[in-house]
């Protein structure tokens, strides 16, 4: 049983949850994720850890409402409990001092990117961060990102904040003006696909953190498999970060939709019951 000690909405469909999980808070590193199950009838879903407080024994998760489980999660309040939280899972981000790191985050992918940005900065790198969202209200964690980035570039689809355009425009601007030694990207699959295509043009090593469907999250089920360089890999134990230039994003996007109809049906039923 893990108590929610803090909840804050970033926007209508995105909230930050701070959850009691003292052991995970202590052992987690940037890049790690947890699997949660809300209640006895819940499903297991992976969520990347956005931060932790060892003293308070808490971890931070950022959740976007996309279906039944995330909707249920966002309906919980401070003091409520999440039945199961297990982790930290996955391989931690390989952080070293390599020079200049370009970090590109989109949507709620910005949350798990935060500890990675912090890690690279603390390792002595110059960190330039590009944050992208559809519109101003959906940009999250901007202040925290500024704290650990040498520069933050905001990109919005409608130009309501920062510059108008996609994440790739912001990335390309940085790549053209200075030497970038590596790139890290987390966001929707389609965004990571184009981020990877952009850096490939310039031969910049790029890692993408993938968020696929999982059940156990410990290597047992294989629901999370992706093709990387033509080989099948399990995101939960081989990842979640992979060489973005080798990831088959088309296949990944198709697999993310593997339960689309069932999920939509369940969500409709949930909304009806919630009324």
């Amino acid at each position, binding site marked *: 049983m893990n108590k929610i000690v803090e909840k804050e909405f970033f926007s209508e469909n995105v909230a930050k949850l701070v959850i009691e999980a003292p*052991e*995970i808070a202590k*052992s987690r590193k940037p890049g790690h994720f947890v699997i949660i*199950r809300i209640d006895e*009838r*819940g*499903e*297991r879903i992976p969520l990347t850890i956005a931060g932790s407080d060892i003293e308070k024994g808490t971890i931070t998760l950022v959740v976007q409402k996309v279906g*039944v*489980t995330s909707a249920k999660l966002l309906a919980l309040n401070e003091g409520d409990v999440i*039945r*199961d*939280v*297990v*982790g*930290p*899972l996955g391989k931690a981000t390989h952080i070293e001092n390599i020079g200049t790191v370009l970090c590109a985050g989109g949507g709620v992918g910005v949350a798990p990117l935060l500890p990675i940005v912090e890690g690279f900065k603390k390792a002595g790198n110059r960190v330039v961060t590009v944050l992208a969202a559809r519109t101003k209200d959906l940009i999250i964690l901007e202040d925290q990102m500024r704290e650990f980035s040498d520069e933050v570039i905001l990109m919005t689809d409608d130009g309501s904040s920062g510059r108008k355009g996609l994440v790739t425009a912001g990335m390309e601007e940085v790549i053209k003006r200075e030497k970038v030694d590596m790139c890290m990207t987390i966001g929707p699959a389609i965004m990571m696909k184009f981020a990877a295509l952009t850096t490939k043009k310039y031969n910049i090593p790029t890692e993408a953190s993938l968020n696929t469907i999982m*059940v*156990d999250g*410990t*290597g*047992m*089920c*294989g*629901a999370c*498999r*992706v*093709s990387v360089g033509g080989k*099948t890999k*399990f995101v939960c*134990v081989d990842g979640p970060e992979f060489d973005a230039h080798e990831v088959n994003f088309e*296949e990944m996007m*198709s*697999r993310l*939709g*593997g*339960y689309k109809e*069932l*999920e939509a049906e*369940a969500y409709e039923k949930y909304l009806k019951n919630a009324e």
Partner: protein
Amino acid sequence: MENIKEYLKAERNQEWRAELRKSMKAKERTGRERNDMLERDPNVRNKNIDEVNLGLTEELALADARRCIDCANPTCITGCPVGINIPKFIKKIETGDYLGAAVVLKETNALPAVCGRVCPQDKQCENNCFYTISLKKPAVAIGNLERFAADYERNSGQMAIPEVAAPNGIKVGVIGSGPAGLSAAGDLCKLGYDVTVFEALHEIGGVLKYGIPEFRLPNEIVDVEIEVMRKMGIKFKTNFLVGRTATIDELKEQGYEAFFVGSGAGLPRFMNIPGENYNGILSSNEYLTRVNLMNAANPDFDTPVLKGKNVAVIGGGNTAMDSVRTAKRLGAERSVIVYRRSLVEMPARVEEVKHAQEEGIEFMNLHNPVEYFADENGRVNRMRIQKMELGEPDTSGRRRPIVIPNSEFEIDVDTVVVSVGVSPNPLIPASLPNLKMTDWGTIVVDQDTMQSSIPELFAGGDIVRGGATVILAMGDGRKAAAGMHKYIQEKINK
């Protein structure tokens, strides 16, 4: 070994056993027919998840127990990985002391109700029974009788809590709560250790919960056995991944003296053929976990499962049978096994194959998939299969399947469950760089003590064997518990 033989002999010479042997002529015993368990109607059971086998009635159990002639040299025991005193528990049944029979089972087997259901008795104890070896007749129904005694005890509401030595205050950790871990935990607890079992999933039981379906092993039966273990004093921690949530070193700092690793065969194997990552193609681990652990077939639960109309299951083991029969129960119109060898070589329990056949499962034996195709949404819709024939025996002793050239054809499928084996779970080894591993990713252990290259770490079950049975895992757990006991006592007495 001599000690065990002496012990068994002394047990056999007890008055009640001698009396019982005299009460009926051996000829009369061997002249009796073996009984079958009652089973649910195949056309009813293949639409629900109720347990298929209904067990033996008291009358049938007594009749089967009388068939056992209580041999002077009970070869059946040599076929049992946990060394159950088989004649003794069967003779207890014959005297009508069913609870006493259960006590005998629990002397060496932490989970008799489970083993009575899922053990490959036909390959183990019953294969070594006097009837099988010398009389060439059906063996004494050892497995059915084990189940009978364990079920009788459970239903009596008088579950015996095994005797536990006085607590010695020494903390030991068991990693994984599957059959290997539970077996090790049970024995360590009996020896007086302070045992904590760490489980990564949210439920205790490992493969008994996520893998074996309800219709073969109801979860309730596993839960009752676990409850007994709790009452013995064993502690369970779910959602705890050793090596991640806390490392072995951190646990040592918390006072743990030794560990048993029974983390199982985690990674499902795929065949690496074109199209295998299309939607609708999944591992048996995923398929069974969704249905068994997550209750996905129940609309009140949130986890979804694909309910295919045309389901192909690739493989011929118990897990393949479990998957294909699950698919039938989820409403598949066609539920077919695709296996590259013939029925004779199938590793599944004979009974499971028989049940599958009765339930309307199709068998495409001597067939092997080579490619999958998908619709415009990326969902599998067809598979290409090639025909096989059998050649010379390979290293496993089974005849090697050989491709018949130009034999390929296609069938329609909308769901494919790949059940071609598993690889050891890499999580624990990855967190212990000094741990000696085989090239196959299994932990190297001493065959007698199950001790690994890290002295305080012992291991057993699929993480050592790479993929075996519940009972072999339990045998390992017992052996490891004895090995750990010896290791710790020697360390203390130094």
